[in-house]
């Protein structure tokens, strides 16, 4: 790293994240979007690569990034505006999913955030664009992001979207930012659309996942794992009881989600929902330690202790042949040297590049983390 | 130059349209082309452009107006109650006045002049009747070959004008009867059925001699001055009748709009009743018997009954009373593409719509179709297999009644 200007060092020192481990990099925790924007301006002028850190639970996703500066959201970690009667909440990106959901639960509400590891932050979830199991019923996380406030790679604080549940006002910047993995800037606050938690829920074992998907009326999820298939229901008590009976099964109250997959190699296989059955069959032959298939959604998450490069290649080719993808969530280097976690460059790569360049002209925000070198 | 006739669409009439576009999906020509210029809203935009003197009444304007079937399905869809049929007749009158030599001049002359003359229609009917008997239709060119879809014209050609029919007992009332132009000779069976059914119900039926063609075809083709003359003649001819029965959908629809065409037209219009309406009412009042039966029959709705007059249930009621079980073919009631002279001016569009309609009828698997309009009947026959029978609901009712 070249020598930094004194003013830069002073800024970094002032915003230093006291809670972060000192691993030789600058770790800073801005407390406002304006501070974050100022940091981005300085980083751009100094040519420093910046990584963004929330809970660190998704930090292995994407191409590895060597950052000179780490910006954490730990100083933007509270609920800013919760309007239970509007079914909206505005929250600092650094707040954890667990804390937010626990608070929302006091009014029997939920942001339908994914079932993440402890410590995962809202900012991290939005940046990775990951959705939870209840996506089948409530749609992906991106559908609930109403507004984001962010500091762009060119050092400006901007707002995308509107704090209302329905808007057709300008370009969907909030949709662009969701899933952009910090490659456009730092997400400071997020406004989310809320749902009420169902009065009653049940986890119902079923023998045929595809059959349950066809039979049940809008279940929360239909998951299949190495331990069998389950249909997850939500609604009034009467509704859950009758739907359980219609599935010709006995359920247990509450939602018992599968244990998270903690294997060193974790893949997300994404295929059209009608190909999930075939994909599961293929994956079983690969003898994974764990797998969770989301029927009706098209995602199969797989955990391996070890995985042959060739077998991995076959799985990826299969998904691509279905116009899907196989993304390595963890342990790309364990599969083989130079394994690309994404697989291939996205469609309309020219447009994608121009978006990256216009939001991050100095290429300092998680440079290269996305497919296609974005 | 803007408008030159008294029939032109007025600014107020044109501004009733709020451009909402709810008419687009029901417009048959928009359905085929997807082209705004082939939609009611687009046609109104074109009329407004002339009204505002932004464009001339030129060939393209004539083309845009000419593609309209005048089926008036848009009027039903319109929440602003725009009188589109009337606007289109006005626009066509302008085309006729400003582009006298444009390509519809032939049909305009036929439907504006010749048709008003009983002798001309009789002469033509003789010719067609003779051709039919010589089985020459196959050598006729193009659309004239459709003559095969015509009913065989009785020779000598009949006429109802100047006649009256009495019921068996004391009449419960007298109704005037429109003989019409081609109906009189070409669809005399329908006339007979209607008159006999009305007699059965106890009506005296009078077809005054001095009546003429209703003028609908003339109005549709832009022969507005001729149409106005015919309307005036009929206003006089039907003076004194409390009720005037009309058994062709195109004629009854047009005469209900006589207010636009002649002094005293409003008054006659208020006394016009379509034969389907009257006979359905008589069935409701038990003045006519219901005949048992449930023979399935496909039903086709003439646009000028269903869209222009809101008469859809009545023909079905008559069919049920005749011992049939109506089977729906088209929930939207889209035009079959016959549309009077349209099949001559726009054979391609007419054929596309005719095919679509025949496909709907074939989907029922039935070879018996009820249609309450001669133009539709011809179009259906032209596009259906030769084994398919197309008949008027009242004809079927009369057949059932007399063979009881």
């Amino acid at each position, binding site marked *: 790293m070249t020598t930094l200007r004194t003013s830069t060092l002073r800024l970094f020192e002032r915003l230093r994240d006291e809670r972060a481990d000192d691993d030789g990099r600058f770790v800073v925790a801005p407390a406002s979007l304006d501070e974050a924007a100022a940091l981005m301006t300085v980083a751009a002028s100094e040519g420093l690569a910046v990584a963004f850190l929330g809970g660190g639970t998704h930090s292995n996703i994407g191409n590895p990034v060597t950052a000179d500066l780490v910006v954490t959201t730990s100083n933007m970690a509270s609920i800013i505006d919760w309007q239970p009667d509007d079914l909206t909440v505005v929250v600092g990106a650094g707040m954890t999913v667990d804390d937010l959901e626990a608070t929302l639960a006091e009014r029997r509400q939920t942001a339908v955030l994914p079932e993440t590891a402890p410590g995962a932050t809202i900012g991290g979830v939005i940046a990775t664009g990951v959705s939870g199991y209840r996506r089948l019923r409530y749609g992906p996380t991106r559908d609930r992001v109403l507004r984001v406030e962010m500091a762009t790679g060119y050092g400006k604080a901007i707002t995308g979207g509107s704090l209302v549940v*329905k808007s057709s006002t300008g370009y969907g910047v909030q949709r*662009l930012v969701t899933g952009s993995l910090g490659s456009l800037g730092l997400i400071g606050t997020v406004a989310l659309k809320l749902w009420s938690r169902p009065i009653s829920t049940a986890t119902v074992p079923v023998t045929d996942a595809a059959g349950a998907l066809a039979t049940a009326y809008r279940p929360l999820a239909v998951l299949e794992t190495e331990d069998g298939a389950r249909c997850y229901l939500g609604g009034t008590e009467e509704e859950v009881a009758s739907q359980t009976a219609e599935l010709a099964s006995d359920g247990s109250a509450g939602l018992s989600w599968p244990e998270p997959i903690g294997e060193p190699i974790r893949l997300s296989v994404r295929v059209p929902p009608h190909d999930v059955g075939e994909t599961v069959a293929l994956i079983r032959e690969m003898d994974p330690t764990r797998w969770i298939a989301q029927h009706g959604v098209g995602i199969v998450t797989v955990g391996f202790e070890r995985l042959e490069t060739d077998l991995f290649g076959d799985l990826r080719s299969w998904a691509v042949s279905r*116009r899907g993808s196989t993304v390595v969530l963890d342990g790309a280097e364990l599969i083989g040297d130079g394994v690309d976690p994404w697989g291939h460059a996205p469609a309309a790569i020219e447009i994608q590049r121009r978006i990256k360049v216009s939001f991050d002209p100095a290429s300092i925000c998680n440079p290269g983390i*996305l497919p296609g070198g974005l | 130059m803007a408008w030159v006739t008294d029939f032109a669409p007025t600014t107020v009439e044109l501004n009733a349209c709020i451009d909402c576009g709810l008419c687009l999906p029901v417009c048959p020509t928009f359905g085929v082309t997807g082209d705004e210029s082939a939609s009611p809203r687009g046609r109104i935009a074109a009329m407004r452009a002339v009204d505002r003197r932004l464009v001339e009444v030129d060939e393209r304007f004539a083309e845009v107006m000419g593609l309209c079937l005048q089926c008036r399905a848009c009027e039903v869809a319109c929440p602003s109650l725009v009188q589109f049929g009337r606007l289109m007749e006005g626009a066509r009158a302008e085309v006729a006045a400003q582009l006298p030599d444009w390509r519809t001049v032939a049909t305009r002359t036929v439907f504006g002049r010749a048709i008003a003359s009983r002798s001309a229609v009789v002469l033509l009917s003789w010719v067609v009747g003779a051709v039919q008997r010589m089985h020459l239709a196959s050598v006729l060119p193009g659309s004239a070959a459709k003559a095969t879809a015509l009913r065989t014209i009785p020779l000598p050609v009949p006429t109802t004008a100047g006649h009256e029919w009495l019921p068996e007992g004391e009449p419960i009332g007298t109704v005037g009867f429109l003989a019409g132009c081609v109906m009189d000779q070409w669809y005399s069976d329908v006339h007979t059925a209607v008159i006999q059914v009305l007699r059965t119900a106890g009506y005296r039926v009078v077809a005054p001699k001095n009546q003429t063609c209703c003028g609908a075809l003339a109005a549709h083709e832009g022969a507005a001055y001729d149409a106005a003359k015919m309307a005036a003649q009929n206003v006089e001819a039907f003076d004194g009748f409390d009720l005037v029965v009309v058994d062709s959908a195109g004629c009854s629809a047009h005469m209900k709009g006589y207010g636009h065409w002649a002094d005293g037209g409003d008054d006659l219009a208020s006394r016009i009743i379509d034969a389907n309406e009257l006979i359905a009412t008589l069935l409701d009042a038990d003045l006519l018997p219901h005949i048992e039966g449930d023979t399935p029959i496909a039903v086709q709705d003439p646009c000028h009954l269903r869209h222009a007059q809101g008469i859809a249930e009545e023909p079905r009621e008559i069919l049920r009373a005749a011992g049939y079980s109506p089977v729906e073919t088209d929930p939207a009631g889209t035009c079959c593409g016959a549309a009077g002279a349209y099949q001559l001016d726009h054979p391609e569009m007419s054929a596309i719509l005719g095919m679509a309609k025949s496909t709907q009828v074939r989907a029922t698997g039935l070879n018996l179709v009820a249609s309450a309009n001669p133009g539709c009947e011809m179009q259906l026959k032209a596009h259906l297999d030769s084994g398919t029978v197309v008949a008027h609901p009242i004809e079927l009712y009369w057949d059932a009644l007399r063979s009881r």
Partner: protein
Amino acid sequence: MHVANSCADAGRSGSEVFTLPHDRRGDDPGRYDVTMDPTVELIDLLGASRVHTHPVDRIIYAKDSGVTAGDPAVIVLPDTTEEVAAVVRIASRAGIPIVARGAGTGLAGGAVPAPGSIVIVLTRLNAIEEVDEIGRTAWVGPGVVNLDLSRALADRGLHFAPDPASQQSSTIGGNVGTNAGGPHCLAEGTTAAHILGVEMVTADGDVVIVGGEAPDEPGYDLRGLIVGSEGTLGIVTRVLVRLIQNPPDVVTMLLVFENIHQAAQTVSDIVATGLVPAALEMMDQPMIVAVENFMHAGLPTDAGAVLIAEVVGHPAGTVVEAALIEEIGRRNDAREIRTAADDDERALLWKGRKNAFGSIAQSAPDYYLSDTVVPRTRFVDVLDEIYAIAERDGLRLMNVFHAGDGNFHPLVTFDASEPGMSEKVINAAHDMVHAAVAAGGTLSGEHGIGLEKRDLMHLVFTPEDLDAQARIRDAFDPEGSLNPGKILPAGARLTEERDA
């Protein structure tokens, strides 16, 4: 604010041509000095019957359902994606802007053609293909009519959830362009949540597919940007729609109130219980009277407000939810609660609601319609302000709302031939938008920005926000040839900073 469906002569006649804002790129009319007439090439490509250049056609295609008129040079009606791409390449070589159009039912002027532009009409791309009943998706042409899609899928037990009032005419492509809403978007979200992928022709004339049946395509979510972009980012030629299971049971209720506050409180109380009905629609008294005069839907014309509430789902759930809504209604002094006994009664209730605007057209020669959204809890406050503004100016106001979403459609009926009346109405309507924005609301819930609200964007976005949006637009369309002059106001690009 936009003026919709006004009878103002200018709008009707196509003489009120919008002018493009002068800006750094794309929006400078000077760029469109057409030196190369593309007509010959276009006719070679499509045939004369699918290329219009006559003045009467240019007027026919000059506007949508809004009031502003543009002035296209050429109108083309392609049949395939390849033809669309070829048209875009011809236009691009000639330096002519392109405006995509569906059924032209938009109210914000999104399809109003820029001067000298080529209008690409997409109605003929209307095939419903590849319906996937397991994945509950379908690839459809942008020209497929919204209601036709749900009708075509009825026997498979599926439907497309967004149901704008224009659904019998408006196309899926148009719904994508405006991120259309509708009553049932309360529970299901607007169009953005129902589009999984699009095939589109880029500004360069390339054909790309973004998104798809497989979830979470790596890379930026371009799909999410395309939705609501009003044809400024690409020409959508196929759409992958998400389909929703038809509910096994539907309960539609009409709740009748003495005043609008009771109705509004009922909405708040329902939402506060956590219940999200399929729809919560409200009409105030003037609107009830207008609708009833036209529709004869059996609405009580002496009521202060009515609420249409619909719950859908499993019968064991709907019965409980309907009872809850009824209880809340009673608690708020609903004087009558009617439940539709069958599909016909339900259809009648909805017909009244969905034809509301048309009914208005008969009560006065002109009307001025707005579309704003406020946070639900500010709904009553803003409503009072809107009424106060109308009263202040002596205007006749009626309201129909997507109450559950906080989405207003205040409607002023007037006669534009009265001197000064149009100005007064526009002024009042602007004040209403300001009231909504001041309460934390935004400009449009479902109609889009188009031309009509373009110059109000600064009310809700900072210059930096607008600049960011301009960057996105320029990434898709560096030359500024796709539907120029829409969405972003003049000066949206902070040029000096970008060039620095």
